[in-house]
């Protein structure tokens, strides 16, 4: 998967939830959803649902728990797509 393209897609997905627009503009692999983007923790489930819809995958509870930053999201999506 192309890392730059994935981050771009993820930026669009998290855009409505991110309260820190500056961090969103500089989103990269190490960006943390809660600490950097200031996404309300309750909205993390919405981010996961939107990611599922975008890539047509199903993310399990355990994976959801660790999907807290861009790198983790990329790893999980990549693994799911390779299983297809």
């Amino acid at each position, binding site marked *: 998967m192309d890392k730059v393209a994935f981050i771009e897609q993820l930026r669009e997905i998290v855009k*409505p*939830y991110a309260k820190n627009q500056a961090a969103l503009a500089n989103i990269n692999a190490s960006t943390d959803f809660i600490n950097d983007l200031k996404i309300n923790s*309750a*909205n993390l*489930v*919405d981010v996961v*649902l939107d990611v599922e819809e975008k890539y047509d995958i199903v993310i399990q509870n355990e994976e959801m728990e660790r999907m807290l930053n861009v790198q983790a999201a990329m790893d999980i999506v990549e693994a799911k797509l390779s299983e297809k």
Partner: protein
Amino acid sequence: MSNRVVITGLGVVSPNGVGVAAFREAIKKGIAGIRYEAQMAALQFSCCIGGTPDVPVALQQQYFDELELKQLSSSGIIYGVIAGMDAWADAQLTVPEGDSPDWDSGTIFGAGSSGVDKFREAIYKVDELQVRRLGSTAVTQTMASGISAYLGGKLGLGNQVTTNSSACTTGAESVLLAYERIKHGHAKRMLAGSTSDSGPYIWGGFDAMKVSTFKHNDQPARGSRPMSATASGIVPGSGAGALLLESLDSALARGAVIYAEVLGGNINSGGQRNGGSMTAPNSAAVQRCIRDAVQAAGISAADIDLINGHLTATGKDAEEVRNWCEALQRSGKDFPYLNALKSMVGHCLSASGSIELVATALQLKEGFVFPNINCEDLHPEIAALVDPERIPQQLLYKDIHLAAKASFGFGDVNACIILKQYPQP
């Protein structure tokens, strides 16, 4: 400690007008907000007319951010937030910035139920084994207190934030509960009001009970007919009304515009005894509620200029008028002016009392009696109790000093409030 309490802000989302300016114009002109509802017809309702406020997306965007709107399908929360924030702004109050909420301000904002459309989506998902796809707002949009929770966050309220629920008495009750909190010094300002969802999933039960009219599908604007000989049931409505209540001291210190003073009132129940039931009022309790409200307000029944009734356009309107006559010991030409807002907006259920109180507050401040529409064929039992001249069908400009508003609800519950004109400086 006993504070005087005044109304310093109004907000309204009504089937015949969204925003105080549009609503004022509509009620003065006697414009009905009842329309044919194609969705109800498609769902084979007997009653295919209703009152749904017009809240286009562009308007919603002024009150909710993009993320909130992405997931919002609770019409009651949309109506209530618009009305509530409007009342706050109308009172010239600002929203606190920074970490400290406004400890002196709270809200008691009622609802009959919350987010029925969101609830429907959630139920379908659960039954399709998709509980994990409900998203993050299925709870906040369907909890009964959803509306007060949304308003509390948007306005930074740090005092009591709660939702009351007592069927069609809800709106009037919210104002009395808020009044008492300020009177006793527990808050300086309370946003009182109520909201009701719209649509077939909230109105279906009334259709099933045959309390909604099925005789006016071809002439919606003439369908809601309180006090008429041809009244044949309610027209279901929806929306929200909001009143910013404030201690007189706080209002004067801020130099706020005062719409009216809340003198007090009464809330009671007929206990579903003596003719009262889950759905019908115990007349002795209704009369007692009105009398106790007059007493609590410290006024004489003879001085009431205007009554804003509950008057739903079912067969119970004559009984209500009789109860007013008995309770106030006034009838014929001596009866106060009588208004039925439901003739224009239908029965807005849990929102009815607050929308009707917004109308009453405007009438006190601006000195008018709005026209009662659709009662050109006044019910003979009502005409025998009250001189028809007291039930005006044309707009009247009159100084109104004292107004009484009552609401009654399923569960045999009653509320009556007395509002007084506040002399303008």
